[in-house]
């Protein structure tokens, strides 16, 4: 079987399209590359959707934590503490079993027991908490002059937030938020190792890498392939976020702009 046939058979295997049986004997490099790459679809899906939706909740949580009113502040603080203070792995397990018992209550909750929705909810809340903390930190370090200038221009309420506070907050938080995005993508690999089942062996990249490592007793091929894919993904994320960073900082001279710098990672 040539490599093109393998790609045709397995490229969309993680979505359940193509050959049903996974390879069992005579594993080729091509098969490993194709299947692990196919699994990356899930990692990208979880990462992108959780990041885009979590962004809005994160802004709200950060505003809540910075609020003076304890009715807003306390829930935001607890939300951040619970999701940042406990391991994501346990959160996945807990959420899965909560969703399982909700399933008995109403069939409305059925989709939540499968990974595409249930794990997404957990990742959404988790990234909202982590980025909320980052945004809160940025909110605290907005230069006093900026808000005073907004007051002097007579801006207040929504337009003050929309035109001054929010853009400045994003600009200050962006380097840290880039890191958060990278490690959210890394965290997506935990999904199929917690409670969420990979129905019909439709798993993510690590699921397939682990499959190959188990079958061949050779971790030295599948895991480096996985690492390669993730390094490429990381570089793409850094590139995209760097473009946004340039746009957010476009009014500043080149040498005062904060560079996006990848720091070693944060396990959740």
């Amino acid at each position: 079987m040539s490599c093109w046939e393998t790609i045709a058979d397995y490229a969309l295997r993680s979505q359940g399209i193509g050959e049903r049986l996974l390879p069992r004997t005579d594993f080729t490099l091509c098969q490993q590359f194709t299947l692990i790459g196919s699994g990356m679809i899930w990692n990208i899906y979880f990462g992108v959707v959780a990041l885009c939706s979590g962004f809005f909740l994160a802004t709200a949580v950060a505003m809540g934590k910075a609020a003076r009113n304890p009715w807003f502040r306390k829930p935001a603080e607890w939300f951040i503490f619970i999701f940042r203070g406990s391991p994501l792995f346990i959160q996945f397990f807990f959420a899965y079993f909560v969703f399982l018992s909700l399933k008995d209550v109403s069939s409305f909750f059925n989709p939540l027991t499968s990974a595409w929705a249930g794990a997404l909810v957990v990742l959404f809340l988790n990234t909202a908490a982590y980025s909320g903390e980052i945004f809160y930190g940025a909110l605290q370090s907005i230069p006093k002059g900026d808000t005073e200038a907004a007051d002097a221009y007579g801006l207040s309420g929504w337009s003050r937030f929309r035109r001054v506070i929010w853009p400045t907050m994003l600009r200050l938080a962006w380097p840290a938020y880039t890191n958060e995005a990278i490690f959210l993508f890394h965290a997506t690999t935990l999904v199929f190792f917690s409670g969420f089942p990979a129905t019909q062996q439709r798993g993510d990249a690590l699921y397939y890498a682990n499959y190959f490592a188990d079958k061949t007793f050779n971790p030295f091929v599948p895991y480096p392939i996985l690492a390669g894919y993730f390094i490429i993904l990381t570089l793409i994320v850094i590139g995209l976020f760097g473009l946004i960073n340039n746009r957010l900082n476009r009014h500043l001279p080149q040498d005062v702009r904060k560079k996006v710098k990848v720091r070693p990672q944060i396990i959740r």
Partner: protein
Amino acid sequence: MFSFCTDPAALEGFRWLSCYLTTGKHMSMYWAVGTVLLLLAITAPTALAFGFAGASAARSNVAPLRWIGKTYIAVVRGIPDIAFFLFFVIALDQAFEYIRHRIKCPDWDEPVRQGNDFIVCTAAKLPLGNAPQWVHETYGFLLAVLTFAIVFGAFAANVLFGAMRAVPRGQLETAEAYGMSRRQTFWRVLVPQMWVYALPGLSNLWMVLIKATPLLFLLGVEDIVYWARELGGAKQPQFTEYPHPDWRMWYFAALLVFYLCFTKVSEVVLGRVMSKLTHGQATAAGEAQRKAAA
């Protein structure tokens, strides 16, 4: 456990619960909490040692040593940590067996890798096939500790490398002016001073380490996640004296609370340590302390 536990079916409410929570299997789960604490107690110093070695290597004058140190630090970037965990456990196991194989069976002529199999002679198996169960468990646990130490050592190396560079240049120049050799400067000036700069990073790392402990489950150790799944599952009256429906949700809720409390306690303790260490230091935090006292 208690004397009234002889007939669980007749018990109700609180007494039933107190009997249920002290069955032999629950005791194993409480022991597993001990395993987690033991892992933390062994891993933290080991990882620190790895990190120290890595950071010292990364700023060495010898080029190959520097490359090794820098690669070790850089390798943790860009790759999901859980992949490391899964990779190292198999890789280390095979490496140990291969080394023992070369020493113990020099006249073995078949290749070690035969297609999909990894075959070493029986004398080189780790642990030996006839070893008792606890040896297998301890070996698995030690592999896990080593894996944790390697991965977290890389993070610690990065923190310490940054801390070594944060020590003011003037301090090192003064040491040189006193005629200290490179080695003396390193041990007598740089190392004692770097800890203040390293502590925020290291305490952050400690939090991360706490949160990484459930990954023991993936390494095949019977830890609290294993027991929560095992004990929480629905139990039929035929097989146990304490039948109950699927309670895994509550077991994981308990784990969640356990980790939250652990994090909170660590936060408070590390905050105290930090304020002790910054006391009297010429840093922004030390300055703030002085002002607050005045």
